[in-house]
């Protein structure tokens, strides 16, 4: 993407108001982190915040782009939409479920922590996602079918 030049860099009063108010709120939060989080921990928190940002920008997002492009190359235009959506939803469900499936937080002696079979749950949900994707694909194919002569 080339840098748009018509408006980029021009800022009206809302920007400066937002900067003043938002900057003050950020400063309040930063002061709280410095005062309450404990010695040495603000730097650790900053590492987590910057690290998560970089993980997304340098790894997750480019990987999604490449995978999306690969799907576009391999699959035709009618199929790729439902497949991409199903892949994205599957990835979302799996990502969200990693701490559940691994049960890192489960505690011996407390049966109410992470009480379900989450691998089974993910299998059910992912199957449902792909059945819906298949249904969408089928509906599109039916709509676009060649008329009988």
């Amino acid at each position, binding site marked *: 993407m080339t840098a748009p030049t018509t408006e980029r860099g021009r*800022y*009206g009063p809302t920007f400066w*108001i937002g900067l003043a108010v*938002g900057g003050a709120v950020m400063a309040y939060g930063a002061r709280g*982190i410095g005062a309450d*989080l404990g010695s040495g921990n603000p730097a650790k*928190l900053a590492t987590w915040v910057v690290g998560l940002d970089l993980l997304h920008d340098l790894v997750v997002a480019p990987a999604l782009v490449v995978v999306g492009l690969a799907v576009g190359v391999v699959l035709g235009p009618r199929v790729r939409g439902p497949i991409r959506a199903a892949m994205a939803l599957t990835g979302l469900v799996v990502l969200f479920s990693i701490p559940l499936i691994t049960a890192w937080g489960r505690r011996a002696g407390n049966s109410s922590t992470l009480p379900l079979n989450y691998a089974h749950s993910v299998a059910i*949900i992912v199957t449902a996602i792909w059945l819906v994707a298949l249904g969408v694909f089928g509906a599109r194919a039916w709509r676009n079918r060649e008329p009988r002569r």
Partner: protein
Amino acid sequence: MSTAGTALGQVAAWRDRSDADPRHDERTAAILGISLGVCFAICFLTGLYSHLAQHPASWFHLPASPAGLYRLTQGLHVATGIATVPLLLAKLWAVFPRLLAWPVFVNVAHAVERLALLPLVGGALFLLFSGVANIDQWYPLPFFFPTAHYWMAWVTIGALLVHLGAKLPTTRRALAPASASALVGTEGGTARIEPDHDPAARRRFLTAVGAGAGLLTLATVGQTIAPLQRLALLAPRHPDLGTQGFPVNKTAAEAGIVAAAQDPGYRLLVTGRVTTPLTLSLADLRAIGLHEANLPIACVEGWSVTKRWRGVRIADLLARAGAQDGTGVFVTGLEQGGLYGQSILNPDQARSRDTLLALEVDGDALALDHGFPLRLIAPDRPGVMQTKWVTGLEVR
């Protein structure tokens, strides 16, 4: 060319093509941005309420009614946070081409705007990651979760306000009816959709994003909304599973109070600003008279369930001890060393008819894990403040 070089080249080509892709234009970014803004505002306000409930300020008192208010606010906090995960990922994907724009900034104000994206994006990712880890009882952070989550929320909301101020004119333009059909791509809004880009792509993309948010919500919200329990396949807690049919946050063994709680010499002390300090056995408490209340136990982690509790009204104990009107109560339990072995009842909550020291739940004696022999149960409070294994009421 190396594989990495080829991949980078593909990403660069994708960035250039995205100018004409409705899924990456201003309108899509604006729609997702507004959705995220609403979600973060809900999470921030409900989180603030939870923080104030646990750290009372001089100007704030938890009301004693409605009884389910905290259940609502914290359920909303967690459910909204979960629904925000796909929204945030979709928004970051939609604007990813702009991250790769060149030059990086054109003047000081533009540099400040872009710099504020670091605490905004990093803060948002941190809040969602740490929040989801917390409800999953997983603590990979090397610092105290609630403190970091709370203060980072302020930083992130501040960065959001900066972003809002910068993007408000763009958002208004992008959502204007004239821009709905034809204008896409650049901040100048002058590029036209190329014929091979389907305008319906935005609708399909946003539908998929909504499906993701709805899917995660449906798969988890049953941990607090009873009729949806059967769909709660990914809920970290299940309201019907646990000792006596509902979840336990900290067991008696984990709290290290198993022997002390079962001591036959157990007594409740009522002390502080009273005319008649009391020392009461369980038989004494039953003799005072037990009352019932249907109250939710609502955890900060988002699960909640209503139970039928039976116990002694704290108001009755205060009257019997001669406590003055307007006094609060410091409740202490057997648990030592943790943050949640004690809590404070403000004057309104202490005198609510439904605030009990419960001996029974759903008709059975309290199990050890739920606070036997006595636990506090009061309306509109976080579960961690419903102190278990209560041994003392100090009137203040």
